[in-house]
C-alpha cells in the first residue's frame, strides 16, 4: 500500500473556522462574559475566512446544495443558523438554546468532514478528540479566571491529558505545551491568576496541532515513480 505525505494548500481559512467555531461553542456553553457577541464575532469572522477556501466564491451559495449526503453542506448550514440564533440571543436570551444546539451540530459536522478513509492521518480517534478537546481547553481557563472557586482545574488537566494520549505524543510541540499547561493549571489552584497563561498555551497548542493536521496529511494515492 502506498501513502503520500502532502500539505493541504490554502488551509488557513479552514483552520480559522474549526478553531473559531470550537472556541465559540466552549465560550457560549459556559456563558462567559458577552458570550453572544463574542460568539457572533468569532463565527462570522472565521466563516468569512473559510469562504476563501473555495476557488469560485461567486458560486459559494451552492455550498448548502447537498444536505442529503455532504457534511460540508450540513456544517455550513448548521453554523450559519447558529450565527442567526446567537444574534437573536442578544435581544432574546432564550435563543441561546437553539444557537448552542446548531453550533454543536456544526462542530460535529466538522469532525465527520475530516473522518475520511482516504486520509489515514485524519481517520483516527485523535481527530474527534482534538476537535472536542479544544472546545474545553480554550474555554475552561477563562471560566476559572472569572470563577476561581470552580472545580474546573481538574477538568482542564483531564482534557489536556486525553489530548496527549490520543496524539500518541507524536507532536513534540503539542505534548510539551500540554504537559506544561497541566502543571500550570494545577499550580493555579493556589495562584488563580496564572490560569491566563494556561489559556494562552492552550490556544497556541490547539492552533499548532491543527496546523500540523493540515500540513502533514497522510493520503492514500497512486504509486510515485
Amino acid at each position: 500500500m502506498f501513502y503520500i505525505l502532502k500539505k493541504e494548500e490554502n488551509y488557513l481559512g479552514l483552520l480559522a473556522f474549526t478553531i473559531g467555531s470550537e472556541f465559540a461553542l466552549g465560550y457560549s456553553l459556559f456563558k462567559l462574559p458577552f458570550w453572544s457577541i463574542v460568539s457572533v464575532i468569532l463565527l462570522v469572522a472565521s466563516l468569512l475566512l473559510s469562504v476563501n477556501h473555495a476557488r469560485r466564491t461567486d458560486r459559494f451559495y451552492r455550498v448548502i446544495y447537498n444536505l442529503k449526503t455532504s457534511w460540508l453542506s450540513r456544517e455550513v448550514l448548521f453554523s450559519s443558523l447558529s450565527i442567526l440564533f446567537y444574534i437573536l440571543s442578544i435581544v432574546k436570551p432564550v435563543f441561546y438554546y437553539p444557537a448552542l444546539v446548531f453550533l454543536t451540530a456544526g462542530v460535529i459536522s466538522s469532525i465527520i468532514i475530516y473522518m475520511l478513509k482516504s486520509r489515514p492521518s485524519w481517520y483516527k480517534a485523535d481527530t474527534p478528540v482534538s476537535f472536542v478537546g479544544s472546545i474545553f481547553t480554550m474555554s475552561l481557563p477563562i471560566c476559572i479566571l472569572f470563577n476561581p472557586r470552580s472545580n474546573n482545574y481538574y477538568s482542564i488537566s483531564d482534557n489536556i491529558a486525553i489530548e496527549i494520549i490520543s496524539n500518541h505524543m507524536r507532536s513534540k510541540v503539542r505534548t510539551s505545551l500540554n504537559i506544561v499547561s497541566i502543571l500550570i493549571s494545577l499550580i493555579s489552584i493556589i495562584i488563580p491568576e496564572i490560569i491566563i497563561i494556561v489559556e494562552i498555551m492552550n490556544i497556541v497548542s490547539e492552533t499548532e496541532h491543527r496546523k500540523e493536521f493540515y500540513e502533514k496529511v497522510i493520503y492514500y494515492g497512486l504509486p510515485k515513480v
Partner: protein
Amino acid sequence: MERKLGFIFDHNKCIICNACVDACNKAYGNLNWRSLIVMPYGESKTALSIACNHCDNPTCMQVCPANAIEKNEMGIVRIRDDKCIGCGFCTWACPYEALKFNNEGIMTKCNFCYARLAEGKGIPYCVEACPTGALAFGWIEKGEAEVDYLPPSEITKPRIVIKQPEIKESLKSKCFTY
C-alpha cells in the same frame, strides 16, 4: 450485480508508450486526468494506466457540497462544471488522485468521453489510442482492483478491472513519498 461502464487494464499487454495519457491530454487540454505509472517488475518493468475509476461508491460525489458531481445510468461519474464551487473537498475523498483543477478554479476529471459515447462518435480517446489493447473498456459487473499498489478498494469500490502480470511476482513501486 448490474453491469456498468468501467476500464479494463492488462499489465501483460502494456508497452509503456504513454499513448493513453497523450490522447487524453490532447483531447481535454493537458489536465492529466490519466496517469501512466511505471513500476519495477522483476528485472523488467510494467505500468498501470489509471484515471477516474467511476467508482460504485463515489465518495467524491457524496462529499461534494454543491451537488456538482453526478453518476449516470451508465455508471459514469461526471462533474457539472457550471455547479462546481472549487472547494476541492472531492480531492480529499478520492484516494486515486483523479480530480484536477482547471485554470478557472473548477474541478475536472475523466468523464469517460461521455459526449463521444452518447453521440456514437467513438470510444474513449485513451482506449482508442492504446496500440496493444492493454487499456480497454466495457460493461463490467464489478471492479477487480485488489492489488497491493493501489488504495484499499473497499473505500470507493472502483469499477476497474486490473489484469495482473501472468508470472506471479509482487509489483513494487520504485519509491513512495512517505
